[in-house]
Structures are given as structure tokens and as C-alpha cells.
């Protein structure tokens, strides 16, 4: 089930595919969600894939590295650092077949959090603009 979905998404040329290839889906401290459903249309998206990992610093570092490797491909980006550490990142990739592509990353290890700090990486595709996504999912 996993492979056909990934094959349809435009991640194959991206470094983040090193961590979004499904290899961590059964990791004991991870949450991986991949959706390609008509229900995404309500968010103006056609594809969504996220991976959040806690406690495993090796995987968390790998997520940060793969995100950083895709930074040169971005047409728009926003990176926030704390010291030498990337804490938040956003990339807008060149559209493929008219589809907008976004990558988000955050690393909570450098923030005080209530639970276990997690690193999260998200890849999304769809007609949604960045402004729309911020409005839709931003804090009210």
C-alpha cells in the first residue's frame, strides 16, 4: 500500500525521501501519516506525508540533515536556528505539473516542551498557497 502512494508523490528526487520512504513507520517512537485522499481537497491538498520521531536522536538528526539537503532546491525558504541547530524550516519547492510542493521541519529538542521533544518533517502537495495553509492551520 505504501509504495504506490509514494510512487505517485513527487518526493523521489528529494533528500527527505531518505526518511519518508516508510522505513520508520514501525519505529517504536515514531508517528508516520501518509494520505492521498479526496478528503484532502478540503485543505486544497492532494498529498500529505509526515514523520514525527521522539527519543531517537540518530533518526532525528537524519531528518534534519535530509531537510537541509533539500534547501538548495527551494524557491522560497525560511529557516530558524537556535545556536547551531535548525529548529524550524519551511521550503517551497518548484511546482511540478502545476502542483505546489511544500516541506516543513521542526525540532523540539531545543525548546522546552511538555512531553518528549520530537522532530517532525512534513511534505505536502496541492493547489493550496502558503498563505492559505498558514490561515488554515495557524494558531487561532
Amino acid at each position, binding site marked *: *500500500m505504501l509504495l504506490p502512494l509514494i510512487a505517485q508523490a513527487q518526493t523521489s528526487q528529494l533528500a527527505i525521501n531518505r526518511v519518508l520512504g516508510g522505513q520508520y*513507520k514501525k519505529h517504536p517512537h515514531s*508517528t508516520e*501519516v501518509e494520505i492521498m485522499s479526496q*478528503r484532502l481537497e478540503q485543505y486544497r491538498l492532494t498529498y500529505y506525508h*509526515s514523520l514525527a520521531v521522539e527519543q531517537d536522536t540518530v533518526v532525528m538528526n537524519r531528518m534534519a540533515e535530509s531537510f537541509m539537503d533539500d534547501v538548495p532546491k527551494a524557491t522560497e525558504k525560511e529557516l*530558524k*536556528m537556535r545556536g547551531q541547530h535548525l*529548529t524550524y524550516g519551511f521550503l517551497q519547492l518548484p511546482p511540478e505539473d502545476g502542483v505546489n510542493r511544500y516541506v516543513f521541519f521542526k525540532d523540539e529538542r531545543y525548546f522546552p516542551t511538555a512531553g518528549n521533544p520530537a522532530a517532525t518533517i512534513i511534505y505536502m502537495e496541492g493547489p493550496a498557497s502558503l498563505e492559505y*495553509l498558514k490561515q488554515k492551520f495557524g494558531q487561532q
Partner: protein
Amino acid sequence: MQNKEYWIRLSDKYFEALTTEQEEQELRQFAAKCQDPDFNELRAVMGYLEVGRAESKAVIRHKTFTRALAVAATFTLIMGISLFFLTHPNRGQDESADFYAYTNGMEITDHDQAFDLMVQTLQGMETINQEELPTVEEQLGDIFDGL
């Protein structure tokens, strides 16, 4: 026009099962018109057989009609299902084949739960973004401003 003796002889032959198809047909036509009580037995047997044959044909017709109805219903059902999937290409995949989710090594099979995870994750991203951290550009700007 045959005489009575002929019909008696043919009738006897009929009861002995020695008549041909053509003779039986001839005898059947005679029995249908004949009022002579000497041929009551013949009329009774032939009438009974005629009724049975008619009922048999009716049963066959009924069975044929029922079978045709079943075939038509099956065809309509198949066409309906095919049309439904043609007009809803994602149906059948939806809710199962177009998503997957795992958390802590356990598979999530509920579509709504997977969507809730997606929305929570996206909203969590914004929480970090709201932090008053300088961007890389702002940090670099600060560095160069100091030069």
C-alpha cells in the same frame, strides 16, 4: 369423414400405445368435437393430457420468464456497479487504500484518526514557528550590521 368403427379402432390403438403422431393428432381433433358417450374415456384421457401439457407449457414459460428476469437483474446489477465505480474512480480505494498511518509501531486503520493526526501535526508546526526566534537571514543581518 371416418365412421365410428374407425375411431373405435384408432382409439383402441391409442390405448395400446400403437398410434403414430399423426394418428394421435387426428384422434385428438375427433375427441374435441365428438359428443358420443362411447368415447368418454378417450376424451377424459386426452383432455387430461391436454390440460397437463398446457400446464407443463405454462410452468416452462414461467421458469423461462423467471430465468430471464434473474439474468436481467444480474446484468443490471453488474452494469450499476460498473457505472458506480466508473463515475467514482476513487471509491473502493477510499478510506482504506489511500492512506496509511502508524504511531509507536502500531498501524492506524481509522481514516478520521489519520486525519486528526495530520491536522494536529500541522498545527504543531505553527506553534514552533510562532517562537520569537530570528531567521537565518536576520541572524546574518545582525552579524553584518556589526561589521
